[in-house]
């Protein structure tokens, strides 16, 4: 990419740790790290359990449902997002007890209410990357 080109929306750059997550999203599946020793989920993906410090983590598929914890409307967009602004971003509290920040779809600022039920949906950004977003779970 040169400076004269228009910046495109940045894509995830999967590394060994996050590759399983992105492989799952390509198949419209949401997987979250789970620590069987303490029976808790954690997000974002890490190399160890934040509870035990051990690396015996599992990936578990989850239904992708939860509530809207917070949201904002981005008016001043970062490079690559200029054409989308204003757009909504939300923090979703999954039923498994972790939070994710994702784009919001199918919702307007007027209709967004904290605590409303949300479900995962998918944004295909490239051949390799399908990104999770959330929409109202009606």
């Amino acid at each position: 990419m040169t400076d004269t080109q228009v910046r495109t929306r940045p894509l995830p750059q999967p590394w060994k740790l996050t590759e399983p997550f992105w492989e799952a999203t390509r198949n419209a599946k949401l997987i979250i790290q789970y620590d069987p020793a303490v029976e808790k989920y954690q997000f974002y993906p890490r190399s160890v359990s934040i509870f035990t410090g051990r690396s015996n983590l599992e990936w578990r598929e989850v239904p992708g449902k939860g509530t809207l914890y917070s949201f904002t409307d981005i008016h001043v967009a970062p490079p690559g997002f200029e054409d989308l602004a204003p757009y909504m971003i939300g923090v979703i509290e999954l039923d498994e007890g972790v939070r994710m920040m994702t784009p919001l779809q199918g919702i307007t600022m007027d209709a967004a209410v904290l605590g409303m039920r949300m479900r995962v949906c998918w944004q295909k950004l490239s051949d390799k990357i399908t990104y999770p977003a959330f929409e109202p779970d009606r």
Partner: protein
Amino acid sequence: MKNPLRDREIAIIGYAETRIERRSGKTAYELAGEIMDQIAQRTGVVPADIDGLATVQTHSEAANPFWAPFLGDHLGLSLSWTQTSGNGGASPAGNVARAAAAIQAGLCEMVLCCNADAANTRQRSDQRSYRTDFVEPVGLQGPPSYFGFIMRRYMEKHDLNFEALGKLAVEQRKGALTNPNICETFNKPITLEDYLTSRMVAEPLRLLDAVMRCDGANGVLITTTERARKMGVGKMVHPTAFAELTNFDVHNQTPDVTETGFSVVGPSVFEKAGMNHGDIRMAHLYDDFHIATMMQLEQIGFCGRGGGSDFILGTDISPTGSLPLNTGGGQISSGQPGLAGGGVQLIEAVRQMFGEAEGRQVPDPSTALVSGIGCINYVRNWSVSAALILEQGA
């Protein structure tokens, strides 16, 4: 609680600050050189007298993993102790405590705390971990977006009166107009109406809620009180208590994002100092966003949770008021000199205590609370909370 600072054995004997500028075209080295020059001119100390250097990780020089040795060499310093702190806006206050600890541990005797960042001229930082996969592709516009989330949760939990945030904006701007070091952009008064109608950045957060990234530098010179007396130093400031917390409530995956490390650090710093909020004559609170200032007032204990709006509206925060607050404009009305930004608060506190805050001098600057905030965690609040108590020396 153990607190070796409380005996006033450590003294800040000089301070320096550059003008804060947009796209200065300078490097952090040149900005740091202005700090060295001011310190040498004001204190009579030469580079050979300095044996410790505490500095901050920058946006502009972040690609250099040898930053402290390079910076020290540039300034002509031979060093028995160096420190590069990567705690963002909490680094400058934190480095005062780190320098004091190093001096008290016998590692060095005179430390230049030099914070310089040409962040608006050159951006070289690259934060990986979760950011490349789970933040940048979402379209988050940096800290303002996070504070949009946080403000919304605050509004859900408490009454937020935007006129209180507007009062912070207007009062700080008044102070800025007496401060020759502010960025030229801010050299005009603003009204409450200007605040309330400024454009949305990340709803409900507005342009005049937020800092603007600039270039600039600041620094203090620290040694033992004993050596300062031997040198015949006339003015000094003692750091007498410090508390810091990184990654507050980290094991809670669904935390209340309106709670921060200051709920721990605030009470802790007062206990260490043997003080309470009523003993503080002026507050210099890290202001990346006005809502952060309000949350700190509550969590440090100047008022109760959710009481920030009423407290601000009911308190005279001007230099002659009952709680002078960010008297030189804070960062929001001075410009944020990148990751040297926390020094804006530190320097204004020391300047007041030296009796050199012309046009905005606090009549009794005998004690000050200086805070720092650094970094932001994934869907949480800020990572680092730091609080420093300063006392005017004789």
